[in-house]
């Protein structure tokens, strides 16, 4: 599995706090129910969306096909200097 531990924990905890912990502290009043529903749904949908994006990329089946100019540039800026010879 290509999953890395840190982002999963960070985002799950983040949305967990928003969706599970914050509703407990929703201000009392006529709008308490609505605020709880809003927080929970926001957390659920946003976490699910992030999770799908993460899982779709952790074990990629194809890679990007890039222009050779782009490849040169990303090799230059993303720290993989170009070696001589053929691949």
């Amino acid at each position, binding site marked *: 599995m*290509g*999953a890395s531990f840190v982002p999963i924990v960070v985002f799950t905890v983040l949305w967990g706090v928003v969706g599970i912990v914050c509703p407990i502290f929703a201000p009392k009043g006529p709008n308490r129910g609505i605020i709880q529903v809003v927080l929970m*749904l926001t957390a659920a949908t946003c976490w699910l969306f*992030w999770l799908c994006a993460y899982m779709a990329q952790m074990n990629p*089946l194809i890679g*990007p096909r890039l222009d*050779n100019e782009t490849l040169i540039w990303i090799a230059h800026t993303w720290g993989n200097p170009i070696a001589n*010879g053929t691949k």
Partner: protein
Amino acid sequence: MTLCQLFLQSEAAYACVSELGELGLVQFRDLNPDVNAFQRKFVNEVRRCDEMERKLRYLEKEIKRDGIPMLEIPGECPEAPQPREMIDLEATFEKLENELREVNQNAEALKRNYLELTELKHILRKTQVFFDEMADPSREEEQVTLLGEEGLMAGGQALKLGSPYRHAYRSAVMFACNYELSIHHEGGANTTESMTRALISDDPNKHMGHVQLGFRDKQESLEFLPCFVAGVILRERIPAFERMLWRACRGNVFLRQAEIDSPLEDPSSSDQVYKSVFIIFFQGDQLKTRVKKICEGFRATLYPCPEAPADRREMAMGVMTRIEDLNTVLGQTQDHRHRVLVAAAKNIKNWFVKVRKIKAIYHTLNLFNLDVTQKCLIAECWVPALDMETIQLALRRGTERSGSSVPPILNRMETAEEPPTYNRNNKFTSAFQHLIYAYGVATYREVNPAPYTIITFPFLFAVMFGDLGHGALIAIFGFWMCYKEKPLQAKKIDSEIWNIFFGGRYIILLMGLFSMYTGLIYNDIFSKSLNIFGSSWRSNYRNDTLADNKLLQLNPDSEDYLQYPYPFGIDPVWQLAESNKIIFMNAYKMKISIIIGVFHMLFGVCMSLWNHIYFKRRISIYVEFIPQIVFLTLLFFYMVLLMFIKWTSYGPTPGKLGSDDPDVIRTSAYCAPSILITFINMMLFKTDPNTRPQCDDVMYAGQMGLQKMFVVVALLCVPIMLFGKPYFIMREQKQQARSQPLGAGPEGAEGAQAENGAAAGAPAEAPHGAHSHEEISEVFIHQAIHTIEYVLGSVSHTASYLRLWALSLAHAQLAEVAWNMLLRKGLMSMGFQGGIFLYVVFAGWAAISVSILVLMEGLSAFLHTLRLHWVEFQSKFYAGEGYLFQPFSFEVILDSAGQAEE
């Protein structure tokens, strides 16, 4: 919601209804539906209110005409006045209206006078010019060439007088005049010279004398005096006027006209019109009458113009003084009118509110019934059960205000009627509630999807819209509208489009915020990507390979991929991969569309469970909810699980990149199956014949067996859905028939069961009483329709959610096109002129971005989200057959009246 009866003492009725109107929590029913509007009890009062409103509208029109600003009511609306105040108000309005009408009439008369005097002034000035021209023969351009005797014999010369195009009939006129005169003329040129001068001669006798020279012996001599009329006519009518004169008088009249430079004000219409002064010379009474008639026909106003210059000068001076006097009087009249209107403008909004409230109260009182003793009014109303206390308080307040001693009575009534649906909303939730109600008002006490729509609607919109930049624009717009809510509301802007946007300001704000989030996940800001955390892809190609190949692909099963994904969203490298970005994004977006869709639909089915529990439909839980959820889960949620399994099971193995080990290959990208093919094969009970030799034909152990079981169980759910409920209803009816043998003959079985069912009142099955009214065949058909709708719907709705993918693809592509075709050209241009070019190109790119990408795509995504909610989500549980609770509320009435008048 309870149906209540309200007993009000007649004196207290007005005040109580007023208090209830302020509260806005009671919906009255019409207890006199058969009574004509003109026969109701309070029809006179309503008529008086209408009359007052008419007067107020007249006042408002006058105030608007003068452009006086009307003060808005600050803060609270004024309360409905007491009935005795109504008489005072009526008197005030009457007085104001009469005063205003009088002032207007006077002003009109004065203006008419003023107009006449002004026209007379112009006439006097212009005719002076005419007479001057004719009297001065030394002037070159206006040379008066008279016909001499020789000239006459020769056929006459043209008489040049001013504009050449008139010379035709003018010459003819002069020719005719001269011809008549010359026959009898006594001298040579002398007489003819003096003939023209005679036309304008100072001495009227001399004038008559000269001309009459030849005619003295004729009796009709007096008729043949060349006289003139002077007047004023609209400029547009002059050509037709001339033609008519020429034809009617056979060319025997002579017209001279001059334009008045400044426009004059028409008194009745207050328009500025251009007029011309004209003077017509003619001879004889017949011509005079003809000329006068023609002038009348063309609505030219004739004025008495003295012939002698001295008289004219005197008249002119008199006219000037009178004009000045009139001006002063007019000014004072206008001032007075202005003062009256300003005083009225201060209170007019207030008065409108009061009058509308009174009218509303009397309309409501008309709905009441008068009881036998004529002392008390009876009303029936729907009242939210939780608000009974507040309403009682309001009624008590009303009774105190009216000084009545008898307290009003609010009685609950039992009824089998369906009450109206009332969902309490605040300004935030009401917009979402309206979105739901636009499809259909919820059945009484049904679960309300609006609170969940608050988040799911913007979220689904954002999945289709996903762009950080465009989302930011929408969010800013929404935020501005919400921040400036009060001032914008106070402005009362007329435009309907603005009102639609403003009404949905919270929706727009949320849509913008969620779009920013999905834009971050899609890594798309105006079609560019952000590289916040560092891409997980590297280039390992060497320079010779790079030099030889234009396009090269990175291989995830190698060092190219760092074996851990970009932590938040789509890797920025994909935006650079213009050739195969779409392939990856399609696979990703289609999967997330189905995942989100299946979750949304499962949520919808769960809402139906809520409904069943509340309405105590236990049978429905077993034969409707459970099969529905099993069907959806075993087929479509299983497909979602397959997607997650594929995401985790197939891909590069970190320790063994590019290995040939068959175990590694089995879990590599080479062997990843297509979810769609897998699903189709599952439904058809097949295995994929085209599996590659190195690959397994299953994704996990036991897949085939499990899938077969899922399909069988899901298909078994269909007959349960189809026949379960009708079977139970039939069984129930038979039970009731057996338990009530009296009066339950076979033919009366259905009808008797209805009554018995209701009378026996099995408590948990009370709602089923309604069902037993139905024919059993109806129940079967009903259930069949529901089942088919659900089963086929689950397939089609799942596919329908793919629009989330389609629209987000369209949006991304449009953004890319806009950038590449427009802004890139500007950014790549060099030098100073490049700067200017970029400035211009940016304007074009921004215009396209806002109009097409934000507005058009936004509207499109909004519509599709709405459809997804209304059809795919709500069809799983929503009945929507209720009617809205429309309480008697002054706020609502005043708002709608305010909008109606605009």
